[in-house]
């Protein structure tokens, strides 16, 4: 049981990698908040910044009410964009 966290933009530098697999417990009580709490404090703080958006399995979510995490879920953290 694991989920995959994806770090875009400068979050990659904070995390030191572009993606990280996080094992889930079997209790079905895993929440995204709990997963973030288990990360390094600097990374946790960067992921919780107000302008960082979230996509769950490729779908943008409007708030942090991520449904119950399931094995294989991909959570992407999207800081402010800069294209063009």
């Amino acid at each position, binding site marked *: 049981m694991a989920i995959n966290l994806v770090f*875009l933009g*400068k979050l990659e530098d904070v995390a030191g990698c572009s993606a990280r697999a996080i094992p889930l417990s079997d209790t079905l009580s895993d929440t995204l908040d709990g997963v973030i709490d288990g990360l390094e404090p600097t990374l946790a703080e960067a992921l919780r910044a107000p302008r960082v958006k979230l996509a769950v399995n490729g779908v943008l979510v409007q708030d942090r009410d991520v449904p119950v995490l399931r094995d294989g879920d991909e959570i992407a953290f999207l*800081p402010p964009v800069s*294209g063009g």
Partner: protein
Amino acid sequence: MSSLPVARVRLATRAFDPADALNTFTRAHPEAGGVVSFLGQVRVGEGVEALELRHYEPLTLPAMEDLAARVHARWALDGLLVIHRTGVMEPGDPIVLVAAAARHRRDAFAAADFAMDHLKSESWFWKREKVAGTWRWIEPRAQDYEDIARWQAQTPA
């Protein structure tokens, strides 16, 4: 009723030839009285050795296609072309090409302008540049948000 024109939207992982792309697009729209295009390229200078654009596969291209559909819905266009690079580029390389073909030039100018403002500040790209061997992420500029706000203040045409 003619069918709605289909936008050509492409996420390019390698260098593309903007002149060739524009030529193909223009020839495909002989009915258009005007074609307006914008080319963004990696600027030479300020010590920039390379530019990299990252994207997020599940979101980036679908959102570009949504944007193109919005542009089509808002202006009377014969065609719209959007090509955006991802990956590592060198100074002088093309980054983005937008072209709008329309019967009347004002629609083409406005559509290309709108598409570029939204590609800059609403599309799923993250940009970093390499200066003196060190990569640095580029933060969005306040000007980019002001540019996009111009359109939000207007009611759709």
